[in-house]
């Protein structure tokens, strides 16, 4: 497959479509991403998308934004990265700001309050589901389970800041793997 060039405006519009047609971000964007950047525009190939996606998942920030930035950068440098990222976030900005303004006008309605009373419970259930899915993939041995319990406990009872957790977890991961390899 011959890869095509990308214009800045084209990048913006493509990622605007991806952002606007993906519900749920990160993991849900892959089918739309493949349709736009591989099938339609031939900007990158299948393997490249998977690599870019993997990098997007293990770098800080929103996965969808990281992916957009990476593809934009590969096609048109820094400006391409910015164009793709702005495209990706534009639908969110428009839709959420519109909805939030509408909601401000009706938030005192008893119907809205009751509906959100139930919606909050549903959100708890959805997050529980997400945690179960993530736990299956990341709590793989007793060392990771210990770390999980320690971080939950320290956050609840010692008010450990999420900012402090990240460096601690990196050092823990490096140390455990180091000793595992030495023991092997």
């Amino acid at each position: 497959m011959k890869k095509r060039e990308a214009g800045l405006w084209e990048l913006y519009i493509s990622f605007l479509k991806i952002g606007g047609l993906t519900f749920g971000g990160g993991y849900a964007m892959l089918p739309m991403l493949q349709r736009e950047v591989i099938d339609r525009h031939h900007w990158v190939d299948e393997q490249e998308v998977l690599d870019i996606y993997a990098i997007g998942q293990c770098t800080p920030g929103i996965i969808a934004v990281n992916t957009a930035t990476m593809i934009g950068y590969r096609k048109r440098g820094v400006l391409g990265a910015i164009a793709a990222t702005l495209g990706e976030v534009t639908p969110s900005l428009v839709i959420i700001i519109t909805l939030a303004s509408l909601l401000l006008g009706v938030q005192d309605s008893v119907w809205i309050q009751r509906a959100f009373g139930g919606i909050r419970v549903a959100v708890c259930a959805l997050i529980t589901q997400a945690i179960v899915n993530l736990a299956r993939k990341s709590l793989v041995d007793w060392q990771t389970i210990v770390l999980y319990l320690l971080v939950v406990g320290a956050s609840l009872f010692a008010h450990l800041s999420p900012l402090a957790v990240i460096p601690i977890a990196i050092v823990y991961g490096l140390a455990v793997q180091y000793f595992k390899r030495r023991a092997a």
Partner: protein
Amino acid sequence: MIYLALFWEFFKIGLFSLGGGLATLPFLYKLAETHPHWISAQAIADMIAISESTPGPIGINMATFAGFQAAGAVGGVIATLGEVTPSVIIIILIARFLTAFDKNQKVKDAFYGLRPAVVALITYALLKLMGVTLLNGGAVLPIETVLYAVLVCCVLVWKKVHPIIWILAGAVAGLLFQLPS
């Protein structure tokens, strides 16, 4: 200068949250503690519901919503730009200097520790959310708790059903049982 403060707070969230949208939750709760006039812990639950039932990445939707609550439409734009700026900088640096970043053994080892920690942080955010949703000053709210148990079973059995369906189910239950009880 609220816009500058918003940009900085969301810049930090973008820089330190690993693993996508829900991973920004613990940081939003922290923000609700340090800047209670921007967002309340209560509003975060509504924010998640709306972010999950509208198009776009959840993390970006939540940042826009939080920024809007703090400082109107411009606040929404500023918060989102703040959250994506670290991504853009980091990804460009990685694209330039590190070609096989995700295949690097040190990076893999770090993620072996980071992943469970991120799940733990999201669990902590869930416990906080359950605290304001299922409890009322320490007392268990029976209708909410039963509804939660039923919905958890549903989402774990029917995994492929879109979240928006469960959010709508929650809304119907809320109207039916006249929540919050």
